[in-house]
């Protein structure tokens, strides 16, 4: 059977599964729609959180980026896992005890302020839409490359599926679909990795394989890759090129940003108890680590295979996958010296005589995971499996984000803001309508992606790090932090971070080089500084303004102990 037949079969099968689950688990109340009735088992919640978190970026792009960046790619590995430690230790149990439905709920109640709630709602919606656009683009890439369907049609199909189970099932439908999607995506990610590891190193465990010796030559794979890199004028794979301070700042911004992302935080509202919130963060990280420890191995295998296949090989002898990706415009070859051979080299490449060699091949980083099984000539069903896994990753994250948007509108804006007298039924309808509108907007962004999606993702993390994280932490760990401090902190954090990113990414992109950055920190890492600014401003302003009212101080004392979580959500209901 051909790849296309396998892909249609596997994708169709998984889609049928998701729809079946959606019908089985539709939501009947707002509590079920927003937080799945707070009845999700911690292990199931861990899987759902993992699927929610691991997006098209994690599944499709991350290993590819690492395979091009080498050691520098570690920022994503540590940043996107280390945040869960912060989440488990500093946020999840307390937010579950607080027992609200959304992040703006907590911000609004803890800081007794509608203004703070509105700032939080705006941040939540902005962050979520940024992300959704990226997911829909991922769906489009998979459809167009593997099913040879028009990108627009691909996105519309993806939208239809998400629409069906998110609008019908709310959080309950999303949670159980995400459990299924996690199983699909992790299987789809690890199977090709195991194949590759066996082929290249003879070790079936990829996490060990990429530290092992190459079967053909007997030298360590990483040593060989470093050698290849040196010959071709790239920086050493295990060494990297970014400055230490920049690596530090980017890792910090990603970690803190992870812990501040509303669609991740909201998942910890769905478990029955505080105890379950703690352990389910642990399970989430176990399931995430399954993919995140395999990703650097995939990166190394992909890099080695790619260099072996294309470097200094005749263009005419390139395999079929090469021309298929050329058709999508994601691989481009330009024969500068007209010798018909592919010179794929780094900036430091020189000939034996010492003259620089011009690079002739550009490869989009996003294609590495998808192209990897083909480059390694794995069986057709494995290639199809990767397509189904990529779709699972994109759809699960998109659904989680759309839910944040819909609750932000129906719960935070209507119920807690403009229309406090809205009925349960009315609120549920509002939630479904806003989810539907959000799906359509997301689909539009997927079909007509703004050219700056990648830039805006850095923005979303920086914003989450500089806005939500400090006010939530301080809201729990400081009784003294008041409304004035929180609002001043959020605003200065956001404005500082946004100004830095907008200046270097949009206003003056040519100045975006290390020499112009403050302390050598790139726009990707500036959220870490924004967070620090937020902390300092919030604490300072609080010193000089009146302390929070007594009932808020009592609220803080209450959320610090687990007992009584059962009735906790009544405070905000």
């Amino acid at each position, binding site marked *: 059977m051909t790849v296309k037949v396998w892909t249609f079969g596997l994708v169709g099968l998984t889609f049928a599964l998701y729809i079946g689950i959606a019908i089985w688990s539709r939501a009947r109340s707002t509590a079920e729609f927003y937080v799945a009735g707070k*009845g999700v088992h911690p292990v199931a919640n861990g899987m759902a959180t993992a699927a929610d978190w691991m997006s098209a970026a994690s599944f499709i792009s991350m290993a590819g980026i*690492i395979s091009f960046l080498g*050691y520098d*790619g*570690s920022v994503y*590995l*540590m940043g996107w*896992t*280390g945040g*869960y*430690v912060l989440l*488990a*230790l*500093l946020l999840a*149990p307390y937010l579950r005890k607080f027992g609200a439905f959304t992040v703006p709920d907590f911000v609004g109640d803890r800081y007794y302020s509608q203004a703070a709630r509105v700032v939080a709602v705006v941040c939540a919606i902005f962050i979520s839409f940024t992300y959704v656009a990226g997911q829909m683009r991922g769906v489009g890439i998979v459809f167009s490359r593997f099913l040879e369907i028009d990108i627009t049609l691909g996105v519309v199909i993806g939208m239809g599926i998400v629409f069906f189970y998110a609008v019908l099932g709310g959080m309950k439908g999303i949670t159980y679909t995400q459990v299924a999607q996690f199983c699909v995506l992790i299987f789809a990610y690890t199977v090709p990795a195991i194949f590759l590891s066996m082929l290249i190193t003879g070790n079936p465990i990829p*996490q*060990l394989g990429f*530290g*092992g*010796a190459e079967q053909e030559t007997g030298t*360590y*794979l*990483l*040593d060989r890759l470093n050698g290849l890199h040196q010959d071709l004028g790239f920086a050493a794979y*295990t*060494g990297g090129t970014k400055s*230490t301070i920049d*690596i*530090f700042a980017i*890792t*910090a911004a990603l970690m803190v940003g992870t812990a501040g992302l509303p669609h991740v935080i909201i998942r910890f509202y769905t478990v*029955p*108890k*505080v*105890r379950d919130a*703690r*352990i389910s*963060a*642990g399970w989430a*990280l*176990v399931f995430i*680590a399954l993919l*995140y*420890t395999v990703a*650097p191995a995939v990166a190394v295998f992909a890099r080695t295979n790619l260099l072996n296949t294309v470097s200094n090989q005749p263009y005419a002898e390139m395999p079929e996958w090469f021309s298929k990706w050329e058709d999508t415009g994601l691989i481009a070859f330009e024969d500068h010296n007209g010798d018909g051979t592919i010179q794929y080299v780094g900036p430091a490449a020189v000939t034996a005589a010492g003259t620089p060699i011009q690079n002739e091949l550009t490869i989009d980083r996003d294609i590495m995971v998808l192209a990897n099984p083909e480059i390694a000539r794995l069986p057709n069903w494995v290639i199809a499996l990767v397509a189904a896994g990529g779709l699972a990753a994109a759809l699960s994250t998109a659904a989680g984000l759309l839910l944040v948007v819909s609750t932000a509108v129906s719960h935070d804006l209507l119920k807690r803001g403009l229309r406090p007298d809205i009925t349960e039924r009315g609120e549920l309808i509002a939630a479904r309508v806003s989810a539907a509108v959000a799906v359509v907007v997301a689909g539009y962004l997927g079909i007509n992606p703004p050219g700056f999606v990648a830039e805006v993702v850095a923005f979303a993390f920086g914003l989450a790090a500089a806005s939500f994280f400090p006010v939530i932490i301080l809201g729990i760990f400081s009784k003294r932090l008041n409304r004035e401090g929180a609002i001043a902190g959020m605003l200065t954090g956001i404005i500082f971070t946004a100004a830095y990113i907008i200046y270097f990414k949009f206003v003056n992109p040519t100045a975006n080089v290390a020499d112009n950055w403050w302390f050598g920190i790139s726009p990707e890492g500036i959220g870490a500084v924004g967070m620090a600014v937020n902390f300092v401003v919030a604490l300072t302003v609080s010193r000089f303004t009146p302390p929070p009212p007594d009932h808020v101080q009592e609220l803080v*004392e209450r959320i*610090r*102990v*687990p*007992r*009584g*979580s*059962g*009735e906790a959500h009544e405070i905000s209901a």
Partner: protein
Amino acid sequence: MTPPKQADRSPIEYWRRNLRYLGMLLAVWFLVSYGAGILFADALNQFRVPGTGFPLGFWFAQQGAIYVFVVLIFVYVVLMNRLDREFEVDEQDEGSE
């Protein structure tokens, strides 16, 4: 398991113990990622994980730190559940169906 006599069981003491656990765990969190994986990565790269081709700093940054993160969360869960019981602030069967 009766707690020792006159042990401080106040919410203040509970919170103090919680903060101490957080301090210890986050110190480890910082050391394996920002320490071994970033600040000291170059120095550690002179060594290898025994029997493999991994330079040590590189291994911490792309593998080791993640494993330690997982362990840290489960250690935290055990410590806190024990602390909750000791201070009798654990959730018995309230709130479950």
